[in-house]
């Protein structure tokens, strides 16, 4: 274990920098405002995107008789289900590995080793959860972009 929560390149025993510490504290309030603005901008972007995709879906409704459009929309849905299945598979694999590691805890010889192993397991579980959440949101973005792109191609195509 290092003395710091993550490997950040800080050497144990390195001299503290009071100027950097006060600068970091002073800038944290401004940074919070900037983060709130970014969240607002992204939320606005996705709301606009959903509205745009909704409009495209309405325009596409007139083409549902087209077998090509129908077939491709089915393929899109099947692809989404496949990606969800893969994410589920990753979750199960990750949990299995962690459970196996949990079984090894009893082999610790010292209290510090036991604590280190428990902390490692907690961090790894948090990371697994984080990865699952990130991948799920990435899939939602993937669907948003790909559906908009696909639907715009279909609605732009001339009617037969």
């Amino acid at each position, binding site marked *: 274990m*290092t003395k710091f929560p*993550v*490997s*950040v*390149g*800080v050497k144990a025993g390195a001299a503290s920098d009071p100027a950097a510490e006060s600068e970091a504290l002073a800038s944290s309030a401004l940074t919070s405002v900037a983060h709130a603005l970014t969240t607002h901008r992204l939320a*606005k*972007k996705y709301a*606009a*995107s959903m509205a*745009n995709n909704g409009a495209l879906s309405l325009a596409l409704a007139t083409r549902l008789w087209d077998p090509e459009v129908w077939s*491709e929309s089915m*393929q*899109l849905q099947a*692809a*989404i289900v496949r*990606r969800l299945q*893969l994410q589920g598979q990753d979750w199960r694999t990750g949990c299995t590995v962690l459970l196996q590691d949990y079984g090894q805890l009893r082999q610790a010889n010292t209290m510090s080793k036991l604590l280190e192993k428990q902390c490692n397991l907690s961090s790894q579980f948090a*990371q697994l959860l984080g990865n699952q959440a990130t991948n799920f949101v*990435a899939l939602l*973005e*993937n*669907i948003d*972009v*790909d559906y*908009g*792109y*696909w639907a*715009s*191609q279909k609605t732009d195509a001339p009617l037969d």
Partner: protein
Amino acid sequence: MGASAGEKIVQLGSYAASKRDNSISGLSSGAFMTVQLHLARSASFSGAGIIAGGPFRCAETYRSREVVAAEDACIENSLYICMSPLIAQTSPDAKKLAQMTRDTAKAGLIDDIANLADDRLYIFTGSRDDVVYSDVVARTRQFYELLGVKPENIAYRDDVPAGHSIITDNPEDSVLATNQPPYINNGGFMQSHEVLGHIYQGLKPPAERLAGQLVRFDQAEFLGTDARWASMSRFGYAYIPSQVVAGAVAAPRVHIALHGCKQGYNYTDYVNGRADTANRPPYGNRYITTTGYNQIAESNDIIVLYPQAEGTDNGEVQNPDGCWDWWGYSSKDAKSLFYSRDAVQIKAIHAMLDRLCA
């Protein structure tokens, strides 16, 4: 210095190399950059090897809403259309991109498309690749055909059950279907030999041992004031075959080998969003020393240039994985668009080639 990078940092030398019969190849972001560099400076190249890469300017495929900034749209396109489209119909539109490429050439931002006519291309996608899906790479082939490359000059392979990787026959490399760093998988053959063997037909078999020089040079002199936007490492590498070192080869050819994301010599992994600088870089020079380029270069007197990108993640440049720029992070102004002849990275790499050719 023998066949390994010694202690010294040298200045990249001049070998009066060929000004036309050069080539380029790369994996992943290196493959996307291969396409960009090949098109931007097509007068300098006679072939390219694209391993898991998409067509030129594919990050600009789709922008539906003005509310989405062009920069955000490029990133969304690169992730969800150029890398992991849900179905073939949501992969890049080759026809549209071919037209955009012709327009870019007409605007004088890249070399004349006519230079591509006789070029030879090796295009590869692993059937188990879940980083850059095969649907995307299929569009790259279609894109080049639309630009006039003869179908018989394109070697297209999608029959190997490989994950996202450059393939080697090294026992210590990852299992073939793996989709994880360092993206160097063992498939029982050296893909670099296939790439060069297709581009330059009739090559001699790879050398058993390397008698040339692997040199380390400072890339800074090729970046100048652009260094701030370039996301390129301090050092680049080049393999100079023994006969070229001895001055026994007239106009040797140059092959540029571009690594993919997380493969630069000084790539540092990010742990919970923070560069793990407390530990050693995990992959180092593996792309340069173990992918087989140097062996086939030695027996055929081909200089291999290995430019290096590095991770940068600050307010100006967002490239934590050390990828080559194919979505616009290095566009410092309107004149240096990331795909153009004046793009920061393209200009620097071509300046290295110019040095070898001088």
